[in-house]
């Protein structure tokens, strides 16, 4: 079950590869499991969770977030008030969001609530630590859309990735894109103490092929390049073109996988072109959840999707938390059943 696999991580990030990959359903499942185990959780979201309708396509209904009494939550003053749940205000933070100021509160009773915490990674870490200090045993950090920054090891200790049919109408494409994303998250750890040439700040943001070629020519023995900040796809592709033509091998070392911005091609493809990626701080991937349904579009067979993903991605448990196969699934309609389940 998700709760067992993610138990070692005090700060757990949930990241979707796109909108409507079932991230919030995964969060709701995890919350239900943790509640039945009697674990006290803290919840925050880098976006907004538990809203009734999708922010871009209002025809899509979203799952609600049910928290048990005693849970901690970081959300805005307005949303906390709107939930109507009795609570104890623990902290008023300096964090201002487009939806209001973020508060940290302990709920005095169970209920449904919209969660909208800080967006910036550093502030996410601050409120997560605050909730742990106030007695949460585990903090769940929900992502938004396809944002990954909060899964950085600077913020979270572990990660659950949500993927699904919404990525593409072809199942093989969904598998390929997911496997690229997982490869990125699980970049090999950079060798410590190995000699590396530090790139100038902003060079990877702006350099065109010609400038990269000059750099390679000026440093004919350089094998490892150190990237301090963001590594965009444009730079990777330009570099890969050069290494491929010159039959040279370059290792790019980044701080962590959230600093790398890939387009269509994954780390495996770039390695074939002579550019290998390594991370000083890799990310601990605990599990993958899949949503075989693309809202208002197509649906794949859940088992087939999980099987194909399993063949492409080794050593990570893959779940469809709404499928009868899921170990935590007591009854198929668990999502709508709450009346029979006294809190």
């Amino acid at each position: 079950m998700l709760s067992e696999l993610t138990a070692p991580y005090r700060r757990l990030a949930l990241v979707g590869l796109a909108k409507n990959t079932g991230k919030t359903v995964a969060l709701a499942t995890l919350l239900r499991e943790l509640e039945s185990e009697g674990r006290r959780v803290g919840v925050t979201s880098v976006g907004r969770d538990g809203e009734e309708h999708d922010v871009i396509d209002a025809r899509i209904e979203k799952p609600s977030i049910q928290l048990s009494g005693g849970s901690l939550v970081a959300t805005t003053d307005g949303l906390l008030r709107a939930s109507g749940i009795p609570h104890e205000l623990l902290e008023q933070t300096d964090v201002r969001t487009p939806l209001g100021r973020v508060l940290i509160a302990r709920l005095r009773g169970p209920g449904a609530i919209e969660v909208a915490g800080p967006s910036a990674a550093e502030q996410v870490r601050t409120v997560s630590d605050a909730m742990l200090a106030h007695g949460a045993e585990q903090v769940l950090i929900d992502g938004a859309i396809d944002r990954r920054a909060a899964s950085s090891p600077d913020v979270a200790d572990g990660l659950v990735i949500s993927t699904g049919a919404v990525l593409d109408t072809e199942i093989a494409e969904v598998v390929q894109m997911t496997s690229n994303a997982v490869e990125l998250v699980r970049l090999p750890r950079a060798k410590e103490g190995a000699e590396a040439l530090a790139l100038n700040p902003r060079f990877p943001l702006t350099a065109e092929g010609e400038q990269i070629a000059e750099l390679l020519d000026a440093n004919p023995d350089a094998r490892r390049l150190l990237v301090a900040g963001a590594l965009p796809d444009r730079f990777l592709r330009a570099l890969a073109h050069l290494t491929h033509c010159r039959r040279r091998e370059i290792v790019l070392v980044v701080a962590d996988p959230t600093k790398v911005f890939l387009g269509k091609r994954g780390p495996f493809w770039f390695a074939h072109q002579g550019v290998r990626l390594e991370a000083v701080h890799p990310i601990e991937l605990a599990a993958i959840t899949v949503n075989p349904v693309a809202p208002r579009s197509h649906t794949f067979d859940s088992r087939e999707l999980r099987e194909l993903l399993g063949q492409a991605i080794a050593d990570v448990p893959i779940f469809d938390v709404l499928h009868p196969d899921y170990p935590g699934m007591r009854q198929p309609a668990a999502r709508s059943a709450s009346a029979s389940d006294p809190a």
Partner: protein
Amino acid sequence: MREVDLTAVRPYADHLGDGLVQMSFTLPVPYSLAARKAALELAGRMGFEEPEVVHYEQLTDGYTYFVMYGRCVQSVDFEALQGEGFDIEYMSEDEIERFAEEHLHRKVVVVGASTGSDTHSVGIDAMLNLKGYHGHHGLEGYRSFETHNLGSQVPNSVLLAKAIEVGADAILVSQTVTQQNLHVHNLTELVEMVEAEGRRGDMILACGGPRVSNELAKELGYDAGFSKGTEPQHLATFIVRELAARVASSG
């Protein structure tokens, strides 16, 4: 004067609460009495009571254009929505200049662009260029602002590099958000790159576009979202206030 019931707000035309709505649409049917009937029936199905066609005409062969009235019986609880987000009182250009002089003691640097494959630069031009919008100067015309408009189809990495180079206080991006994931991805990617460069704390991120709401801005990771009807002084008010608040909270 009658008091407005803020827990049940509905459209207003002749008197409070009458729910009157004017709408216009085109149907792909020939101009005829049957067309008029179709429009009435459609408005009824939309939930309008007492629908009325006040004008209709042939657009072209096989198409009819309608202007209609209808009574909307639905209402929204405005009271419950208040307190969500910033209730900003916007300043005028002069007030913004004075506020910036008093609280910031330096020029506010703003970099803006339409990013990715978006070719629309109208929104960003209206906010940043001297010409402005709706009779209001763009930020370029403010003494207290230094602006850099990079135009359209700018890669996120290039926009960010420029912002770092000029020490931007705020980045403004314009995107025509559609139901396709592409534009949304462009917007989130910029936020994530700013994070990856370790600059999220130093820069205000604002996005604008016809479908951008504060709710969407929050999900995307921006500090504010600006939609249709935004005038340059609205954006400027937000930026100077937010900068002043950041200066204050960093001691």
